[in-house]
């Protein structure tokens, strides 16, 4: 009996410790999975400048992170992979301020030892197994825009011919990359920043500026942040030369002018 009560108490303690509140000196940052490496580095650098402060980072697809916010998660800052999240967060009444902090663009990747003669975007219909992001996630939307632009330029049902060769609609850009790296897919569209660290395994094909869409990454400061000053300082830090250097190391391009997108 005693042992049972002891076990029950242990269980309760586990439950309580799982939901203990964050320490006061902590920032919770949600960031799109394409930012994993660079945001981790920025988080560490920011911690060094603010001794005692803890930067907790959570990475997932932007869409999943937004879903978590909808279900009640309250990060201080949300770094999303698509500008549409500015409006979506503001619709929830949670947006305080937003700034574009990085650009990214799509590239076509092909396994390096691929025998198919794919050297430009126009060769893409030669690939029998193409993997792209689902239209429900940002990378899939950009891919759709890119293919539509190519179709307008080249005609001959380019988009249709490509789409008929698509074998999977993945739900995150890292899964698209994984399928290409595994050699399961003959080609896939990923962000330029995702190629970093895999240059040896991939043939990277630039679609060219005429067709490409620029993905704009907004930093979103939440209305509900318990540390609005620190959160704003973190956003400044991301836009500072140090922050931009870390982002560049992760393959992201600094915005030409750090345009401020204010809440409508």
């Amino acid at each position, binding site marked *: *009996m005693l042992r049972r009560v002891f076990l029950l108490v242990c269980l309760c303690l586990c439950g309580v410790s799982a939901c203990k509140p964050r320490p006061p000196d902590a920032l919770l940052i949600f960031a799109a999975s394409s930012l994993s490496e660079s945001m981790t580095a920025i988080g560490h650098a920011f911690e060094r400048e603010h001794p005692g402060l803890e930067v907790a980072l959570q990475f997932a697809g932007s869409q999943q992170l937004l879903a978590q916010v909808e279900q009640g998660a309250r990060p201080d800052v949300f770094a999303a992979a698509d500008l549409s999240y500015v409006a979506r967060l503001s619709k929830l009444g949670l947006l305080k301020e937003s700034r574009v902090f990085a650009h990214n663009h799509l590239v076509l990747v092909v396994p390096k030892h691929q025998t198919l003669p794919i050297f430009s975007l126009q060769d893409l219909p030669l690939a029998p197994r193409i993997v792209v992001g689902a239209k429900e996630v940002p990378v899939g939307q950009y891919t759709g825009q890119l293919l539509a632009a190519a179709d307008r330029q080249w005609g001959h049902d380019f988009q249709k011919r490509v789409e008929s060769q698509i074998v999977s609609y993945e739900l995150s850009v890292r899964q698209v990359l994984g399928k290409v790296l595994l050699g399961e897919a003959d080609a896939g569209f990923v962000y330029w920043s995702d190629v970093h660290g895999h240059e040896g395994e991939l043939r990277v094909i630039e679609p060219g500026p005429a067709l490409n869409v620029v993905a704009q990454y907004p930093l979103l400061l939440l209305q509900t942040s318990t540390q609005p000053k620190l959160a704003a300082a973190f956003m400044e830090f991301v836009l500072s030369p140090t922050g931009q250097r870390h982002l560049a190391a992760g393959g992201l391009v600094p915005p030409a002018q750090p345009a401020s997108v204010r809440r409508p």
Partner: protein
Amino acid sequence: MKPRLPLQSWTLHGMALVLVLMLMLPMLALIAQGLHGDILRVLLAPATVQALWLSLSTSAVALLLVVIFGTPLSYLLSRSKAPFIEKIQTLVQLPVVLPPAVAGVALLSAFGQKGMLGPALDALGLRIVFSTAAIVMTAVFVAGPLYVQGALNAFSSIDEELFLVARSMGAKSLRIFWKVALPLARPALVSASLLCAARALGEFGATLMFAGNLPGKTQTMPLLIYTAMESDFAQARTLSLLLLVLSALLLSVSLSLSRKWRARP
């Protein structure tokens, strides 16, 4: 009847209630929130019908394969007196408890392009990944052991004397399997196969990794739910409700059959 102390009874009921709440609340919430005005539109949408058909047909094919090959396997495992037979029984049932991610990686390692059999399959012109066959293979891998487990228990619980009598009357082993073991175990085999079908129907993680996500070809119901979650949570809830009802049906028939079988004279 044993005397019961009120305190003990209270403790037991209290502890039981904790788990009952944990198990029932999510399902009740799904039912409460999944039932909304748009339910028919979601259920009759072409994408839903397509995914449901794909789920049902691939699960059926997987089940058929599992029953055809798993029944002799379970029978042999139950009858064998070979050394290490218990270890072999454990190994055969292992996939059912593997984390889905592990199952996915394992299947890719075996049948992927850079996997063990990839080059050989490629030489034969076979690409498994991203094909409908990959869904069936995943289902066999993760759900097959459930059937083997049930069938093994069924065959093991047949009275040994019946086999002895059959043998003394001159029956050969295939005949004993066909005429003695199979009829006696049949209800338990049906019960196990329904359980296996339910597991196959719900398979998600390994399928996503091994078969990909293409509507009409590899997008099964669980994958459609996951995709819907990215854009329309209400749709995901309604689709989940549909799978919940299907699973409940399969499980209740399976359990009632196995109860009947255990209560047999």
